[in-house]
């Protein structure tokens, strides 16, 4: 039996479910599937004994579980990256000054971000998301993923290069012509 009671699990969920949901979204999980995977992540965390205070932060610990969930989920839906519709991108809750123009621009930027992230494979994507979007250190990422620090740096370096190229291409080219190029890159 887990040493974490339901209350502990509830507290962990209450504090970090939004983080896990965001992480999963950044890892390419469709918004409609995010809640299912959030449930799975916290169920696995609970059955595994919950988060124990240590060198890893709760976010890092949960991200490692969420990464496994997202990888499996993505494998099931390998083609979704290039057929995702714009309406899957939900509106931002981070900016309180809503206006139609701002919302539209935010949606467009989010769509571009997701497409740029889709250019990365899962191994590079998790390192990139945790380092660049979640602000984790590379050493912590390497520990959580169980990879050497050198490998984590190498993946981050490659991910930055690919993301940069994809982002610049996205800003230059029209969104309709981009998927083929990204697909060629991923295929290569």
């Amino acid at each position, binding site marked *: 039996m887990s040493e974490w009671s339901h209350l502990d699990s509830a507290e962990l969920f209450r504090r970090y479910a939004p983080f896990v*949901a965001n992480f999963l979204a950044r890892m390419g999980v469709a918004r409609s599937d995010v809640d299912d995977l959030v449930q799975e992540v916290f169920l696995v965390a*609970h059955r595994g004994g919950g988060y124990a205070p240590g060198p890893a932060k709760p976010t890092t610990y949960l991200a490692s579980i969420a990464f496994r969930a997202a990888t499996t989920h993505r494998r099931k839906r390998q083609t979704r990256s290039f057929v995702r519709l714009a309406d899957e991108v939900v509106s931002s809750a981070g900016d309180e000054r809503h206006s139609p123009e701002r919302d539209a621009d935010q949606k467009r930027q989010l769509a571009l971000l997701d497409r740029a992230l889709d250019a990365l494979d899962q191994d590079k994507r998790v390192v990139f998301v945790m380092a660049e979007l979640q602000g984790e250190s590379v050493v912590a990422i390497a520990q959580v993923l169980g990879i050497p620090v050198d490998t984590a740096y190498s993946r981050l370096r490659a991910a930055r290069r690919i993301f*940069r190229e994809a982002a610049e291409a996205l800003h230059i080219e029209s969104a309709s012509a981009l998927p083929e190029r990204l697909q060629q890159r991923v295929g290569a």
Partner: protein
Amino acid sequence: MRKQPGPGRDYPLRGVTEDVSMWDDPQESAGVRQLLRVGRVDQVDYDVDAGLARHLANLQSGAPLPAWAVAQSTVQKGWSLSLLAWLLPPMISATIVGSWIYLRPAEPSLSPLPAAPAAAVLSHGQGPLQLPAAHVPAPIAPQPAAAAVPAAEPAVVRELELAQDASKLRVAQSSRTARHGASTHRVRVASVSNVDRDVERARGSEPALESGGSLRGIASAAPAASSATPASHAAPASSSATVNSVASASASAAESPSEPTPTAKPQAHKEPVAERRAEGAEPQSPRDNGISEARLEREMQMLAVAQRVLSTDPERSLRLTRQGEQEFRGSMFSAERTQVSLLALVQLGRLDEARRLGAPFLRAYPNAPWSARLREALATGRLPRR
């Protein structure tokens, strides 16, 4: 030379350190930084209260783990078993050689007394121990001919060899922490020799192979040495006067713990060997734990082998699962074993039987981690890929 990881290492493409994020890098283009800003600021609009209610409901209903979590834990177990298989041979060799060197009988020329037929010399790490002639066990009659009972199948021999390896590993581990008393040494030797004897039986040199014989050997050796029950005081029945004879005699006595020999019992109470054994008695619970661990280990081994050979040798897989069900009926792996046996039936082409047995089974376990795979196998008549 290995590069130094960590902060401060130059980022070769742009001349900045890798710990400086792209967001903070002024050389990054505005487009890249804009995307990163959106990625940091944007939050998924997640309903925490609704999600929490669903989470607590999942916990209370005992929802099964997702398939990806179950599969990864299985893979990790597989790695553990593989590692164990690599480590076992050298550890076994070292244990056998070490035990032989430490426990070998004293040289006859060094014995202060002439070697008489009625005397036994026991090496227990503190010099030879002389047994009075009255306490030396009588030779036992040879076992019935092996031809009376058919020899075990090679597959069963392999399973017993697996159990033998596992028991020797336990012996090696326990020898590091066990006390260095004479009785402790006898426990170790008894365990090894019992398992060896069971393997020999399975190979056909002795009759009466029974399922789980080796484990019973391991289990029975422990009470012989660690408890002071009447059975453990029973007189040994071996003609050899070496340490191995004591080991096998202890096992012989322990194999029938509920049937103490009336004639042997009073004699055994006077026996120094039995008294020394009683002095080295250990608490009850570790012994029980050892037995249950050994049973669990054997059950897991049988199940793992059955799963491994499912596609290549379904007949063996089916035999192992049925043997496992006989030995460990109603255990925690019973359902898992049943689904392996159903898959083996499918692989053997006995589809009607598999479907007949599988339908109620799947009704009982509709959402187990392996239910979907079994359902697909029963529907298509072939094993799906994992």
